[in-house]
């Protein structure tokens, strides 16, 4: 129902964790692209297996950087990123590629290969990483496309699909190899309400049906609260403000949390960008 | 354009390139003219090789029979030593002579072979004994002036009449 804070989903199964240890552990990680800005500051997080964890926060708080660290794109300045018990070492290329085969990532705008068709895009990981025969690949691709509701669009070219469709195709590609970890970078950004609902349903259903672990990076509070099992709220400067179940965060009395989940324009996150006093800027000095 | 079409296109492109290479090599360069396969080496000594360069042709009666492969100075006799490769199907008598000639008036220089009369032929590695050096312009002018002076002298002092 539009407007409700918690759109109701018929299927929401919280699997008890199959194993007690988290799939991903972010252990005292500090990271910055260069020495002047630290994007993540001594962050500690654990992502439980089989659950949908949402990382919320405003732009520039380091959420996407978190995904890049988990994927091993950049090495952390200090601390460790642990994936299924193995410390992610960005210099060890074979290990990196081994770990990356177990994850699927959905990029913000799809990042589809524009020179291939929809079918070839979803078939890409299968053709590159496996030796499966073409008839089998054909069936798997159509099944994945069917899971996202786009089996009929298999023959289209990427230039012919809309933004929402592109993201669904990218999702089909991300799950082509049935990964254990699916990461979503801003899956709801720029979508209309229908597409948002579709995306949310897909994320939740995929997670439950395949038993994968999902990590959703977003700033869309209603959708995330509806589908997540665990929510982490981050603020600019890469620190964790709060974490908990959706209900806990919605009921929190922390001013930062309240401002974010209610979308209040001014509060701990200031409305005004830091500036000189107004008198100086407008030339109203003491006469 | 399907995959097959692309491959055909690329195949045509490569074929075209190779055809161009073949065309340039055969019709527009000297590939067809001389193969180095069956040849024997012969040397000749000249007082002055003039403007002779390596890879210049060796001709007999104007027909190309070989190529110059090397030019060196003999440090003892101070003569130019020219090494040449001659096609094995052309055998020259031992007393053949080698002259340095010019193709046309201002053209490149080449070595011209004139067959001698001996029964035995030049063996591989042999040296041609009879040689004629290149015509050097300064020497020619000097000779001309000398002749002029001699004529003037003989005109002034008439020789004994028969």
């Amino acid at each position, binding site marked *: 129902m539009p407007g409700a804070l918690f759109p109701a989903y018929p299927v929401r199964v919280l699997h008890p964790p199959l194993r007690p240890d988290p799939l991903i552990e972010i252990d005292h990680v500090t990271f910055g692209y260069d020495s002047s800005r630290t994007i993540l500051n001594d962050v500690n997080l654990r992502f439980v297996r089989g659950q949908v964890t949402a990382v919320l926060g405003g732009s520039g708080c380091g959420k996407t950087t978190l995904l890049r660290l988990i994927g091993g794109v950049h090495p952390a300045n200090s601390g460790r990123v642990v994936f299924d018990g193995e410390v992610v070492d960005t210099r060890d290329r074979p290990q990196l590629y081994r770990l990356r085969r177990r994850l699927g990532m959905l990029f913000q705008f799809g*990042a589809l290969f524009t020179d291939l068709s929809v079918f070839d895009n979803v078939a890409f990981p299968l053709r590159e990483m496996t030796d499966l025969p073409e008839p089998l690949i054909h069936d798997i691709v159509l099944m994945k496309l069917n899971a996202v509701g786009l089996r009929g669009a298999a023959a289209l070219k990427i230039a012919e699909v809309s933004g929402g469709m592109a993201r669904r195709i990218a999702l089909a590609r991300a799950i082509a190899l049935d990964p254990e970890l699916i990461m979503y970078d801003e899956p709801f950004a720029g979508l209309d309400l229908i597409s948002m609902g579709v995306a949310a349903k897909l994320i939740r259903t995929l997670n439950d049906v395949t038993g994968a672990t999902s990590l959703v990076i977003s700033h869309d509070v209603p959708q995330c609260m509806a589908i997540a099992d665990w929510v982490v709220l981050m603020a600019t400067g890469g620190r964790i403000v709060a974490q908990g179940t959706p209900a806990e965060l919605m009921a929190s009395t922390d001013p930062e949390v309240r401002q974010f989940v209610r979308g209040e324009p001014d509060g701990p996150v200031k409305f005004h960008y830091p500036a000189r006093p107004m008198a100086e800027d407008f030339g109203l000095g003491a006469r | 354009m399907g995959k097959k079409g692309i491959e055909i296109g690329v195949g045509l492109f490569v074929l075209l390139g190779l055809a161009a290479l073949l065309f340039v090599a055969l019709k527009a360069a000297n590939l067809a*003219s001389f193969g180095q396969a069956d040849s024997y080496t012969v040397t000749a000594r000249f007082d002055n090789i003039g403007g002779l360069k390596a890879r210049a042709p060796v001709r007999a009666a104007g027909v190309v029979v070989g190529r110059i492969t090397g030019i060196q100075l003999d440090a003892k006799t101070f003569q130019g030593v020219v090494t040449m490769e001659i096609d094995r199907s052309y055998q020259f008598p031992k007393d053949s002579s080698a002259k340095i000639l010019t193709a046309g008036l201002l053209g490149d220089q080449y070595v011209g072979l004139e067959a001698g009369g001996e029964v035995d032929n030049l063996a591989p590695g042999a040296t041609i004994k009879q040689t004629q050096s290149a015509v050097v312009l300064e020497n020619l002018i000097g000779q001309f002036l000398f002749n002029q002076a001699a004529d003037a002298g003989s005109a002034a002092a008439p020789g004994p009449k028969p």
Partner: protein
Amino acid sequence: MGRLMGRLTGFVQGIGARVLASLQGLGHAALFFVGLMAVLPQSLRRFGLVVTQVYAIGNRSLVIILASGLAVGFVLALQMYYALVTYGAAESLGLVVNLSLVRELGPVVTALLFAGRAGTSLTAEIGLMKAGEQLAAMELMAIDPRARVLAPRFIAGAISMPLLAILFSAVGILGAWVVAVGLIGIDAGNFWSIQQNKVDIWRDVGNGVVKSMAFGVICTFVALYQGYETQATPEGVAHATTRTVVISSLAVLGMDFILTALMFSTP
């Protein structure tokens, strides 16, 4: 006085910083090249990718290369004729055009055209793939984008350039033949026989082919590098394509000088 010194030190520091930045850029490019070479064998095994790229890079450049070759052949024949006929050496027209094309103009002009046509399209393509996060997506799928995307294009460029250059020369010679024999009336037999006598297959044609191979490597590498390192914005891509053409052209001309001096210094 103090301010002057301050300005001076600032200026020198600026120069120093720029020199260091250029050195760093050069080093980065060299490492990129080495990394590309390292994944070449992998891409050679997937020759289908290379073939597709040869089509995109080579076949698509055929029209401009052939047209330019023909035009250059025509013009060379006309211009050289006027110079040669004053010395009574008009018969050597074929030879002069042939040597000009095969030794110099074929490789160099083809390289410049290639940089403009294929180089810019490569830069733009790679730049936009990077902007659209396609390369990052590939990387996170545990597929090395250098092996899958960059190396096939590099091999295709290195293969296409020599072919295009020799096509340019061949078509130019034919164009000169049309003008010389057809238009001007030089004897056809002489036209070809002088060339066959004087143009050496290894020294002239062979060196020209070696040159075009070197240029192919240079132009393709510069194009790929600029595309890969571009900023993911429209202005970034625009700057990158400009840099591709400028750097490729300068590098080709510089390399041409070096190679010519090496190959043709002794007559």
